[in-house]
């Protein structure tokens, strides 16, 4: 799965609206995009819906892909934006529900894993805020460089580094991990 192959596929889609080439891009990257969103949302079904929406946005905006960075970096930027938009929508929805006096949506519905099946990763992600979670997942699960994360989140590289530093510090503090325990 090389970067140049991705760029060739993008060129084929942009030059002739080649749906097959886009299908190839989807099947190459669906795993990373879905994994990223699953870790952000904690809800597999919601993550898959958001991933579908993200690929639809990507289809609409593919001509804006400059080819400067990796396709997956660009794709994760769209996925992250889609996630943030969905969060804003659901926040507004919750506010409307509160206004009309209805009970809030059951929080447990958002998590597809039962409490006894909570993984180390989920425990670890739970101590991070939304931004830290997104950046840590991009860095350690998706293997994006700081530059690519900076492009994806529209943050300066320095800010990305300090978010990672802060997140690591939180993990160390919350789980009482000493440096020598990593080795």
């Amino acid at each position, binding site marked *: 799965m090389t970067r140049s192959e991705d760029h060739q596929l993008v060129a084929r889609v942009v030059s002739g*609206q080649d*749906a097959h080439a*886009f*299908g190839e891009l*989807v*099947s190459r990257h*669906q*795993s*990373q995009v*879905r*994994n990223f969103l*699953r*870790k952000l949302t904690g809800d597999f079904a919601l993550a*898959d819906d958001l*991933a*579908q929406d993200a*690929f*639809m946005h990507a*289809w609409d905006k593919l001509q804006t892909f400059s080819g400067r960075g990796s396709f997956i970096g660009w794709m994760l930027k769209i996925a992250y934006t889609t996630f943030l938009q969905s969060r804003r929508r659901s926040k507004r929805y919750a506010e409307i529900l509160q206004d009309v006096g209805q009970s809030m949506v059951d929080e447990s519905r958002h998590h597809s894993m039962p409490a006894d099946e909570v993984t*180390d*990763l989920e425990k*670890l992600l739970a101590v991070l805020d939304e931004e830290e979670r997104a950046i*840590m*997942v991009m860095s*350690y*699960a998706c293997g994006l460089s700081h530059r690519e994360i900076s492009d994806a989140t529209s943050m300066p590289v320095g800010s990305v580094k300090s978010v990672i530093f802060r997140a*690591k510090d939180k*993990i160390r503090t919350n789980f009482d991990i000493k*440096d020598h325990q*990593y*080795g």
Partner: protein
Amino acid sequence: MTSKIINMAEIIKDAEDRFLESVFRTDSVADNGFSRMVMRRIRRRLWIKRLAMPIAVVVGAAVAFKPLVGLAAMLAGILQLVPDDMLASASQALPHLSTYILGAMLLAACMLGLRTIEE
């Protein structure tokens, strides 16, 4: 001594990064028809885009048909009021008016057809 500290810091950092990578690492998600679902949505959108123009033309024509007939009848009524010698001089000025209109209509239809094929 300083370089030893720097090297040590890098080793610790690497170990920490390796630890985090191992925690964050997950198995790849099986496609299970996901790509097919996305492509189905895209094909549906392409078809909608392709059909939008012809459907808009048909609907527009259906909506505009009655007012156009009324307009044509009104124009015919107005033309009857114009003196015959004035009409004859106008047709001399534009000898093949009907051919021009037909040509323009054919050109428009060809352009629409080509655009649909292109998409």
